[in-house]
């Protein structure tokens, strides 16, 4: 009897918890989006004292977005999109090739090289930001798109994901193509890559979001206004233009949604790739 009551209560507890958690996650994002369509002077007008106006706009306006459009923010968005797409294109190519090599071939130092891959993926990027900056500056690469793109192209994690995927593809498939006289390049490009498209989608999404969200590296490596990336631009809005909350909220909304939308569309590949990768 007791266990039947608790069995009936369990879904109620489960969904109550989930609803509370979902609200904790969504409320801040929704608040930013709502605030971005308020006139700048209204954003914090009602927030010190709780009332319905704290959360619901009195006046609705696109003015913040119009001002944002006329600022240097579109340039930052274009810069970041360019950097992100370049990183994705190059990164997918070279990381999938390396993953393919680890999965398909036997060669001397294979394990040693794989340990190097794992170390680079555990090693936090922040730890090498200053030495990387010193290196890039000494080579006169700072303030270039090259400096923003190249350090993120070879990624230990993405190599690892491709390796995990290719390891699971039947070896006979590759050997059959080999018997037919195909070169390894053909096998990689025409057999292995088309099969791996869910991993390609997941890896592209990860690399895109990684660059879209990049902050520390662009902050130090690309200080020229022409190369400003989105996150750095937003952090500057807060520091230098404290009063301009309208533009800040519009910029935060744009920055959030340009990462959230592709993610929402493609997240099942992201989840599946990590779940299947065997990090467990």
């Amino acid at each position: 009897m007791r266990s039947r009551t608790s069995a009936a209560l369990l879904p109620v507890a489960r969904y109550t918890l989930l609803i509370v958690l979902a609200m904790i996650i969504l409320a801040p994002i929704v608040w930013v989006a709502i605030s971005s369509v308020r006139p700048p002077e209204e954003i914090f007008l009602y927030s010190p004292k709780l009332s319905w106006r704290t959360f619901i706009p009195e006046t609705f306006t696109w003015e913040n977005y119009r001002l944002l459009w006329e600022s240097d923010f579109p340039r930052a968005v274009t810069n970041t999109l360019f950097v992100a797409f370049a990183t994705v294109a190059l990164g997918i190519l070279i990381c999938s090739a390396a993953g393919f090599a680890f999965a398909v071939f036997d060669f001397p130092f294979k394990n040693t090289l794989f340990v190097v891959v794992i170390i680079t993926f555990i090693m936090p990027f922040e730890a090498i930001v200053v030495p990387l900056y010193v290196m890039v500056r000494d080579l006169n690469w700072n303030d270039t798109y090259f400096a923003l793109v190249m350090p993120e192209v070879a990624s230990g994690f993405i190599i690892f994901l491709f390796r995990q995927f290719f390891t699971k593809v039947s070896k006979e498939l590759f050997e059959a193509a080999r018997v037919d006289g195909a070169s390894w390049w053909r096998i990689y490009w025409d057999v292995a890559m088309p099969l791996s498209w869910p991993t390609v989608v997941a890896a592209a999404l990860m690399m895109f979001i990684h660059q879209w969200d990049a902050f520390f590296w662009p902050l130090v490596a690309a200080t020229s206004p022409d190369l400003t990336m989105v996150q750095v631009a937003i952090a500057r809005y807060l520091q230098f233009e404290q009063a301009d909350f309208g533009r800040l909220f519009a910029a935060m909304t744009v920055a959030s949604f340009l990462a959230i939308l592709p993610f929402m569309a493609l997240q099942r590949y992201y989840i599946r790739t990590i779940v299947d990768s065997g990090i467990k």
Partner: protein
Amino acid sequence: MRINPAYYFLAPAFMGLSVFKIFPIGVAIVGSFYGTTLIGESVFRGLDNYLSIFGDLDLLRSFGITLLFNLIANPLQIVLSLMVALLVFRPGPLIGLFRSVLFLPVTLSLVLTALIWNLLLDPYLGPVNAVLDAVGIGRQGFFKDEAQALGSMVWLTTWRGVGYWMLFMLAGLYAIPESLYEAAKIDGASWWQRFRHVTLPLMRRPIAFVLVASTAINMLFFAPVYVITAGGPNGATDFVMFRIYQAAFNYIDVGRSLAMSTVMLVVVLAVAIVELWLMRSED
């Protein structure tokens, strides 16, 4: 002699990793023995940078703050991400939607997360304080309060991190054979006993992974400190990574900054090894 085709496939990626991930470690180590004079000349300083780091009480306090932050934030995120993974593991109506929502903060940058929570938790303007005031708890200082700033940082990183770690916990949960749960059920094991004796032991590897990965990230916690507190109030959020940044870009003492980077690389590596050793399988 024929070159193994594997090396052609590996070459581009390993060039990238060597130049941009491995070589900077060498730059950090070599540079940590040098200093810069006032006129910008590079001079060999031997171990001076290291001696000054370990003799600097303020910096040791920074290490303490960074360590304390990790000791709270990482176990907290592990427990919460496992709990949340268990909530969305079994199928059910709308469970997929909840899973997406919980995972959503992964797409938000640490900078945006920091900006949003800084505004939400503002002592004067923040709506969170309006709510706390209305329900009678009273206004809190959060990031502006010396006693609450570090805790607010823990909240921020947890809010953003749990959904991501949940994914790795889910991967672990999916790998546990259903038959083990059924066998435990037939033996009359309660929900807690099944969790304690079936789930937990088999979740050792994902938990170890999340522990190591979250430590690697949180030992070098930076962006929110830069954006929100700049180390304050009164040094309460004086994280090591912020000092490394300041040493290089505010005080232009690159040698010292590189020495600190080297120490942190060693510390992160050592902590990861200790954690993996602690989480090793008992069999």
